């Protein structure tokens, strides 16, 4: 009976909202929109790091661009009083992700690091996750994308090349998280703050993107997340995203509209 009770307790704990706090990590990201100048270096780095196919003009016009990370541009006002806002959007790794409830085969699920992970091999391509995603960050392999020779030589060996018919999305560079955790384990210590950096954060020239563990109150992301400029995208949907934005500061010192 005690075994059954322990299993019952464990299952119960999973149903508590915010259960991820009991895990080792909850990887999160803070994006300071005041520092973002829309240069799209993060997008380029993401393409290079994660073996994203470049699909060409026709598919891009058809809204099939493969960027896991995109920089949305919003223009406010009329010339000459124009304000242009940039907001980089990638998978928010929601703690209560709508996509996870949609998948019939657990191809997308929540792992112990608080990440929303995608299992390419398990995906059958029902499109449900992408339909349910409020941030439209999921990308589908509409066909088999093969890089032209000799570009296939530059593929990242740590990342799978996905096949046709499979859904994919930003992983917070899970291969780098794995490597960081493995190194820490080899040295018999925990992961240090700042030790793991995704490609987008690494390439950002203004340092707008900060990555770290939201469970660790001493980490850089946790401290930045306390900022009064903090907001989360579409928070009213109660998805509990792991990406936190810091609003822009306008010329007159007030915070901008952000979204």
């Amino acid at each position: 009976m005690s075994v059954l009770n322990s299993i019952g307790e464990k299952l119960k704990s999973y149903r508590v909202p915010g259960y991820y706090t009991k895990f080792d990590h909850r990887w999160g990201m803070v994006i300071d929109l005041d520092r973002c100048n829309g240069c799209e270096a993060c997008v380029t780095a993401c393409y290079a790091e994660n073996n994203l196919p470049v699909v060409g003009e026709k598919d891009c016009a058809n809204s099939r661009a493969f960027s896991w990370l995109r920089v949305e541009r919003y223009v406010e006002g009329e010339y000459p009083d124009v304000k242009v806002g940039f907001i980089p959007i990638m998978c928010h790794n929601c703690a209560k992700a709508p996509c996870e409830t949609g998948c019939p085969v657990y191809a997308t699920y929540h792992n112990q690091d608080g990440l929303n992970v995608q299992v390419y091999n398990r995906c059958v391509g029902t499109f449900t996750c992408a339909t349910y995603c409020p941030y439209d960050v999921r990308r589908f392999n509409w066909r088999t994308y093969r890089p032209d020779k000799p570009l296939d030589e530059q593929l990242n060996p740590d990342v799978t090349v996905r096949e046709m018919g499979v859904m994919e999305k930003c992983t917070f560079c899970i291969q780098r998280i794995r490597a960081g955790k493995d190194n820490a384990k080899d040295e018999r210590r925990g992961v240090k703050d700042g030790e793991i950096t995704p490609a987008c954060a690494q390439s950002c020239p203004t340092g707008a993107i900060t990555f770290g563990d939201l469970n660790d109150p001493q980490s850089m992301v946790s401290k930045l997340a306390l900022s009064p400029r903090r907001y989360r995208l579409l928070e009213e949907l109660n998805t509990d995203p792991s990406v936190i934005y810091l609003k822009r500061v306008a010329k007159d010192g007030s915070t901008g509209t952000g979204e």
Partner: protein
Amino acid sequence: MAQQEPESNNLTYKGVNEDVMGIITRSGLGYYLLTGAFALAAIGLFIMPWAYQIYLGQGVTGLNAPVFWGIYLVNFVFWVGIAHAGTLISAMLFITQTPWRRAIARGAETMTLFALVLVTLFIFIHMGRPWNFYWTFPYPNQRQLWTSFVSPITFDVFAIGTYTTSSIVFLYFGLIPDIAALSHTATGWRKALYETLSWGWRGTDAQWSVQAKACMFFSAFIMPLVVSVHSVVSWDFALSVVPGFSKTVFAPYFVTGALLSGFAGVLLMLSIMREVYPVMKKYVTNYHYDRIGVFVLVLSLTWSYLTLMEVATGLYANTSLEMEHLKFKLATPPYLQLFALMIFCNTVMPLVFIVRKVRPSRFGRFVVPVFVLTGMWLERYLIIPNSLSRKFLPWMWHDYAPTWVEASIAVGTLCGFIAMFMMFIKVFPIISLFEVKEDVGIPMRNGKRH
């Protein structure tokens, strides 16, 4: 005031047998050529483009980043809807002992069966990797992989699976006495087939008792499915957070719409059958059209009310997301025109059935059901791809238009449906013999023996 039930006195047991056998065997070369043409069209317009799509990937469709569900899902929902009338007629009206169901039940059940074939096909067609479809079933395997029971897609697998299985069993149970009766007069391969499939049915009291119990059991079993299956299908959409999908009214809305389109389908099918086989006019009479017309009218009014509620729910929510969705659906051409056409087809057109005389008229038999079916297809189109084109972040908004592959598969599967139906009625009785004979009465009473 109610119209009299059809006069059955001029029918005899033998006459019923001969009429039904005539439908099965007596057809000109034209009929077979037409069946072959539909089958060829299904291969050319459905199988080949599908093979093309499987080979090249979903990129051949018009789907894009926000609109991941296109007219494959529209067709999926549409055909589930068509299947529903058969279930309602065979199960719910069976239990309530409604007399006019007897002559039309078999035809409606057959429609259900082949509509469900298309439903299953469309699930596979819309998948990115259809060859892995069996992963959606919970089966024990060495890798300890399981399915997610919180996913509405898994609900779908069970709902459609249960529905298809029970519909086939129900149809077959009803067929057993009929094909046994026909095996006496049939010749050639049909006789061998009937004798095999009737499992030695001799019409003893014990057999009839078992058969009646089985039909009653399956009616009771299928009856909840009339409501549950399309509710589950609606949850594919309603359980998401997408504006335009996330509405609690969806389950009754979808069920009503399904029954409306299903009854329109049955109406059209019976009308065409009557034109092709004038002998059916003895069995499917103006009385049946009157009853079906009432059903279509009531369902259309209910559907119109729920459509109003669906829009009102969005207006009442009054969030920028819902308003944007409604603006796109109700005020942007061409969807504005499509919405108006849908209202005309589903709300205005069936109103002609208020007039009793219209129900059995040529207009009521052919024109109204075609309009209702068009309207119901448009309803699904205006819900599924349309809601997805205006999701949350305006940067990602993108319109959707089906490509030739999607259009061709939609037409090809319809041809396949017609071809399967035409082949079915050449093998199995499309009128339920033993149920019609219940209307005829015991032969002795009329002094007629067969």
